[in-house]
Structure formats: C-alpha cells, structure tokens
C-alpha cells in the first residue's frame, strides 16, 4: 500500500509541471506583449528595448521558461498591478474566505445529498425516487450563479430573511484582525458572539447555493451506486440473516456504495476554486474567485496567472488526496 501511495505521489509531480507549463504557454501565446503595460505610448524603440531587457523578455524562450519555473517553485507569481502586492500574498490572504464558503457548502451538500440518494435508491421506481431524480436533474442543469441570484431575490429582496450579498460581514461591522482567516473561527476565538451570528447569517445564502449545486450530483451518484449495492449477493445474504432495513442500508450497502461518491466529492472540491469566480462575484465574497474576476476585468495577467496556477495545484492536490484515501479505504487496492 505504501508503495502504491508513493507511486501516486510521484505521478503528481509531472502533472503539476504540466499544469504550470500549460499556463506559461497560454500566457506567452495569448497574453500580449507585457512591454506595452510598462512603456508609455510615446516611448522610443530604445526605451522599449530597455524595458524588455529589464523584464527578461529579451532572453531566449527556454531561459524565460526556466526562470518562470524557478519563480513558481518559490511561489513567486510577480506583482499585481491592481493591489501593488505580491500575487502570492494576495492569494494566501484570500484563500481562507474561499475555503470557508467552499467547505461549508460542500459539507452541507454531502450531508443532504447522500441520504437523499440512499432514500431514492431504496424507493427505486416509486414516487420519492422520481421526485429526487427530478430535483437533482434541475440542480445539475441550472447554472450556480443563477441559483444564487434567485435565492437572493427570494430570501433577501422579497422576504428579507437573510442579509444582502455584501460579503462576509455586514458593511457596518468592522472585520477583526485575521488570526486563522476563517471568519467564524476568528470571531469565536475573540468571543465576539454578536458579530459571529451576523457572519453566520451572511454565510447562509452563498453556502446554500453551493450546497444545492453540489447536492444534486452527489445524490445522483449515491443513488446509482446504492441501487447496484442493494442488488448484490452480500445484501441478499444479509437479508436472509434477518438484519433490519436500516442496518442493511446504512451499515452494509452504503459503506460499499460510498467509493464513487468520495471520488465525486473530490472532483467537486477541485471545482470549488473554479466555481468560486462566479459564486463570489454574486455574493460580494472577498475570496480567491473575486480576486480572479478583478484580475480578469483589469487585465491583470500576473494575478490571473497566479490564481490559475494556485487553483490548478489545489485541484491536483485534491485529486491526490482522493486517490490516497481510495487506496486506504478500499482493501482491494491495498493488495493490487
């Protein structure tokens, strides 16, 4: 098993290298000439050449590539034009906000989606099954940003039950100095419970949006996998031995049906960073996604490139974790 895990870890390296290389090529092929960003329009050719020299653009492409690799390895993505800070500092500052929202939403989605899938599978081809399937089909076929807008329209604009999309805290509350960067944890550590409640309330609508969007595929995969598990020989044996329904569903069938669900949750977790761009823009959430969107709007290529590499590496790490988890929990893999 250890060898298998090590092999998997080693394979992550060329994949990460590939991801970084793709980003380099895309930026160089399509990114335009960075000289133009520094040179005034009336600059002479001589000045332009000087700028190119200083930016390292006069060197041959392979040298630029190697220098870029060295920079990325040191987590140096350059300086953002819009914040005037190192892109890596910007990204690290904004990561907790994205993780807080992503983990809450995904956790909520799994918490609702898995039981829903089990329920649909045990009531297969009956009314509850069709309802769950219809509901989850809609959840998968709707764009996440639209679900978010509709929730805002219903629960903020019309009913006024939840606060507006202004980020992690109401505008009049001063955010605390970050300790962990996770708003709910920081406020709890500070013992500021009235702000904690406000922050929790701000989190509800974006987290529910993400939960709906992730619950749908989780429920569908759980259902399909459970249907298969419920028809297997070991379940028939367990029925013959007189086990109760609940023990059957949750202890025997679900445990075996959960493997594809775990893979899926890994994929969804990897997608949280990409989806964050849309979700965070709707809810004014100051995370990685909003940063990327500002970079897109301001043509801030260093920032955008940094975000893409950051998100892609997190994606690769997530898949790595899922695969390792798979090896650990599936006894068949251990002896492969």
């Amino acid at each position, binding site marked *: 098993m250890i060898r298998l895990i090590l092999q998997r870890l080693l394979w992550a390296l060329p*994949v990460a290298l590939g991801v970084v290389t793709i980003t380099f090529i895309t930026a160089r092929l399509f990114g335009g000439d960075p000289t133009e960003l520094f040179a005034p329009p009336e600059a002479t050719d001589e000045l332009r050449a000087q700028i190119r020299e200083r930016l390292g653009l006069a060197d041959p492409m392979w040298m630029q590539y190697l220098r870029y690799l060295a920079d990325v390895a040191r987590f140096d993505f350059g300086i953002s034009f819009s914040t005037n800070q190192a892109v890596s500092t910007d990204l690290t500052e904004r990561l907790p906000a994205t993780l807080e929202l992503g983990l809450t939403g995904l956790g909520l989605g799994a918490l609702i989606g898995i039981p829903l899938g089990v329920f649909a599978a045990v009531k297969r081809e009956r009314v509850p099954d069709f309802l769950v399937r219809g509901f989850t089909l809609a959840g998968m076929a709707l764009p996440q940003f639209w679900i978010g807008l509709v929730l805002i329209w219903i629960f903020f604009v019309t009913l006024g039950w939840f606060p507006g999309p202004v980020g992690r805290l109401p505008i009049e509350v001063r955010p605390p100095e970050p300790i962990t960067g996770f708003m709910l944890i920081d406020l709890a550590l500070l013992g500021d419970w009235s702000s904690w409640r406000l922050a929790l309330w701000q989190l509800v609508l974006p987290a529910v949006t993400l939960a709906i969007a992730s619950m749908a595929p989780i429920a569908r995969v759980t259902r399909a996998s459970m249907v298969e598990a419920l028809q297997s020989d070991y379940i028939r044996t367990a029925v013959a031995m007189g086990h109760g329904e609940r023990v059957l569903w949750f202890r025997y069938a679900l445990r075996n049906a959960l493997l594809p669900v775990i893979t899926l949750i890994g994929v969804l977790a990897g997608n949280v960073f990409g989806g964050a761009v849309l979700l965070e823009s709707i809810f004014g959430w100051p995370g990685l996604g909003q940063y990327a969107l500002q970079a897109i709007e301001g043509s801030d290529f260093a920032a955008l490139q940094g975000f893409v590499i950051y998100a892609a590496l997190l994606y690769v790490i997530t898949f790595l974790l899922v695969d390792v988890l798979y090896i650990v929990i599936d006894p068949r893999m251990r002896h492969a």
Partner: protein
Amino acid sequence: MTRAPLAWSMRIGLCILGAYVALALISLVWTPYDPLSPGVGDSFLPPSVEFPLGTDRLGSDVLSRLMAGTQYNLGIALVAVILALVIGSALGVVAGYYGGATDIAISRSVEIFQAFPGVLFAMLVVKAVGPGVLNIILVLSFIGIPDYARLARAEVQSRRNWPYAEAARMVGNRSWQVAFRHLLPNSMGPLLAFTSINAAFVSLVTASLGFLGLGLNPNTPEWGNMIARGQDGVMTGEWWVSFFPGLAILGMTGAFYLLGDALADLADPRRRR
C-alpha cells in the same frame, strides 16, 4: 418494464431539444421585437401581454432576446461537442489500437490536461484571445477532448482482439480500417452518451463565460450575458430579466442530461436494471 422509463427520458429529451432547434430557426426570421435594439419599450417593464417576459434595463424585449439567444447557446454547444467528439475519439482510437509509445504519449498528455480545471482554462484563454463565437467553440471543444480520448481508448483497447476485429484483419483490411471502420463504430454508444452529457456541461460553461462578460460582446443576447444584464435589477425587485434566461438554460441542459442518461442505459445493458 425496465424499458419504459428509458424510452420516456429519451423521448422527453429529444422533444425539448427539437423545440429549441425550432426556436433557434424561428428566431432567424422572426422575433416579436428586434432583440438587439434598445428602447422597444420602457425600461424594466414587468411581464405583460405586450411584453410576455418583460423588458430589461435598456428597454429591450426579453422574449425576443431569449429566442435569439437560442442560436448562440445551442449552436455553440452542438458545434463544440461534435468537434471534441471527432478529434478526441480519433486520438483515443489511435492510442487504443496501436498501443506502445503512441499510446503512452497520448494518454499521458490527456492525463495532464485533465488535471487542469477546464473552466479556469477556458476563462484564461478566452480572456487572452478575446470574445467571439469561434473562440468559445474552440476552447470548449479543446477542454472536452481529453475525456473523449480516454473513453474511446478504453473502448477500442478492450475490443482490439475480439473475433470480429480478427476477422476484419484476416480478410485484408488495413489497420486504420479495422480501427476506424470496425472498432470505432462499435464504440459509439458510450461516446454518444458522453457527448450528450458533455453538451450539458458546455452549455453551462458558455453561460458562465457570458455571465462573467468574457464570452461574447455584452450586447449579444446570449443567455449568460442576459442574466448578467439583469443582475442589478434583481436587487431592486426586477427579477424577470435574469430569471427567464435561467429557465431557458435549465430546459436545454436538462434535456441534454436526460438524453445522455438514456443513451448511457442503451449503451450499457447492465445499467438498465
């Protein structure tokens, strides 16, 4: 008994997609108002007899824009998935049939591209090359290619030595003929099922790019663009501008999913239980 729901989801999916195709064709010759011109009515008129889905901030008719948008969203999805299907399966068939170094080269590159989050890649490239229908189609088909290649490779590899492939070789077919004329057609089931699922994904990404203002010129009546244009209105209670394009996306994407499910059941009889 087991066949009933199968035909059912296929039929619904096809009917809905047929309706969208019809809508796209109709919108080429007729829409209630000019979808591109502002001020056919007042700003933010709620749905009424005159404007069934209301008007947006600029006073354009939402229904006309929605109809015209079908060309973009459906057209982009169809062309992008067909392109990805053709290129991806060709790569996969070559990798699966010939094996060896060719296979390793193709499979490894596919794995690396798959590790790259597709939506982010699309955002990066579209931002760089600029908006436009052709650009979006190319990017979206490009991010689909790895999946098709992997699928086609697995299918062809598992059938390479089946008796019918042997027979095809015995009667003197060249290797590419065996691969593309005999093995590929027999692998089409899963590929087509995936194409339909992929079309759903592609239409969601198209709308996302449009919503971010990356996809097409902001005045284009693409559904994601339209939702973005109505976003401010939602905050002040003018929900209809953003609401209806979402329903249009739901119908089209849902139909692709239904069709894909039905095709997957057809391709894999074990799933038909």
